[in-house]
């Protein structure tokens, strides 16, 4: 295989991986706040694309308005979902809550089918124009957008966690909810904001990728598996690890393609199982220290 072909695969891997990274971040943030794996995460990705298409084609808003608007709306939906479906059962076992998120995922998908139909809906690229050429490989403009968005998101989250009051409150809840409450932190509010943030990240990923792939009511579940595998690969811990997990999963998928492109979608599940069997704490985390 030629270098340019390898490079092309790597570019595709990092593009898909960036999307997985955003989803993995969503899984990680909700898990940190609640110990729940939110399987509705993929639906936020689908809804992000849907609302952007709606704003752009139905309401004829400019793309630069439609995109952030869609993200905000989905963030609101995420918080509403937490308030209506999770909070009333917040003292239940994590497994019961996980089942609720699976149910929520089905509800979102059917509502989307009713509201938006069952066709694939397109969105134009954020900036039109020919692909960039780099050492014989082509990089679509939208791919550059996706990378830029991931970089900004990770920088923003790192800032949030290390330098702001809200970020510290989120980390405090993650480490010791009881103590966080005693420090005057309204933990119910932190959980709601975590869902909103995770939904926004899912929506960002969905909006960014729709110009390349279109969106449809039933794409949520498939991407959720990828994002979940990436999150597990990263160890459900720090934001950076989630991003690394996403990028790595994207690259592994592309590495498989020359052998059999049919295998691509099995990769995520394979990685998921391998990590759970061999290294359940994820690739980037020391095994959990036991504390008295």
């Amino acid at each position, binding site marked *: 295989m030629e270098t340019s072909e390898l490079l092309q695969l790597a570019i595709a891997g990092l593009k898909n991986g960036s999307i997985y990274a955003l989803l993995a971040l969503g899984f990680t943030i909700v898990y940190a706040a609640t110990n729940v794996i939110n399987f509705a995460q993929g639906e936020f990705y689908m809804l992000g694309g849907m609302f952007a298409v709606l704003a752009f084609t139905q309401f004829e808003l400019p793309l630069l308005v439609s995109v952030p608007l869609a993200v905000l709306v989905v963030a609101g939906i995420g918080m509403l979902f937490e308030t209506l479906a999770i909070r009333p059962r917040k003292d239940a076992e994590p497994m019961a809550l996980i089942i609720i998120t699976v149910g929520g995922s089905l509800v979102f998908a059917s509502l989307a089918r009713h509201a938006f139909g069952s066709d694939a809906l397109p969105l134009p690229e954020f900036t039109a124009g020919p692909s960039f050429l780099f050492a014989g490989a082509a990089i679509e403009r939208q791919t550059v957008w996706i990378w830029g968005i991931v970089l900004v998101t990770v920088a923003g989250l790192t800032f949030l966690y290390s330098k*702001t009051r*809200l*970020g510290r*409150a989120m*980390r405090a809840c993650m480490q010791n909810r009881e*103590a966080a409450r005693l*420090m005057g*932190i309204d933990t119910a509010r932190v959980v709601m904001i975590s869902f909103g943030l995770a939904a926004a990240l899912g929506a960002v990923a969905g909006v960014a990728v729709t110009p390349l792939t279109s969106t449809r009511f039933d794409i949520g579940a498939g991407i959720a598996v990828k994002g979940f595998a990436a999150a597990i690969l990263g160890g459900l811990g720090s934001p950076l690890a989630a991003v690394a997990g996403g990028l790595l999963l994207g690259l592994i998928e592309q590495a498989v393609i020359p052998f059999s492109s049919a295998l691509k979608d099995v990769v995520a599940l394979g990685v998921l199982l391998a990590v759970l069997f061999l290294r359940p704490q994820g690739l980037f985390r020391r095994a959990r220290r036991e504390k008295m």
Partner: protein
Amino acid sequence: MSMLSVRGVTKRFGGVTAVDDVSFEVFEGTIHAVIGPNGAGKSTAFNVMTGFDRPDAGSVVFEGATITGMRPHRIVRLGVVRTFQNTMLFDEMTALENVLVGMHARTRVGFLGAALSLPGVHAEERLAREQAHRILRLVDMDDVHAVPAGDLPHGQRRLLEIARALATEPRIMLLDEPAAGLNNVETAQLGETLRRIRDTGVTVVIVEHDMGLVMEVSDEIVVLNEGRKIAEGPPLLIQKDPAVIEAYLGEETPDA
């Protein structure tokens, strides 16, 4: 002036009355100790006083507001903070960050402010950090501000928990056996720290086994035995109180 009043508090667990009609007043600017032999009901009384357990009868009133049954983060915002026997620190955060979390209830910038990085955010964050360093200095721990709480030795973990509680800017601070597991030197430092805290205007309540510490730092002592209050007064009177001596001598393995 009375700051915290415990009024006729009774708490039962099944058939056992752990706290039986206990009343006392905590005055502003004092260090107030609650002592008693094992099983006297100290911890239960403490949990009721901090709003953690609802009493079966009676109430706890802080500056006119009944705190029984109030949600923990609200109680903290009123100015009542507690620590635990088993320290509950954020182990993966540094000492400084632990204190900063304590300041959560007193800083104002909300989610949008932080997300949009409004001008006030940086100024507030900087002030918060300066204040956190000041609090760490108060407990002689500023030199380890960058160490994760989980890596600190036991004595410093206890002090850090006190520092974090102070960061909530309490009017009154309740400490559950702060000297547990400390050696003599550390206990002496703790006593010094408690006095310093009182002198900054924070009222202190301790539930404590270590009689040396209690007699040295307390302004007022309440003695519980088998769920009932058997004595109260300043240390010199308590040491001579026949009911107290009786209660402690009757205990098979005295802690003090």
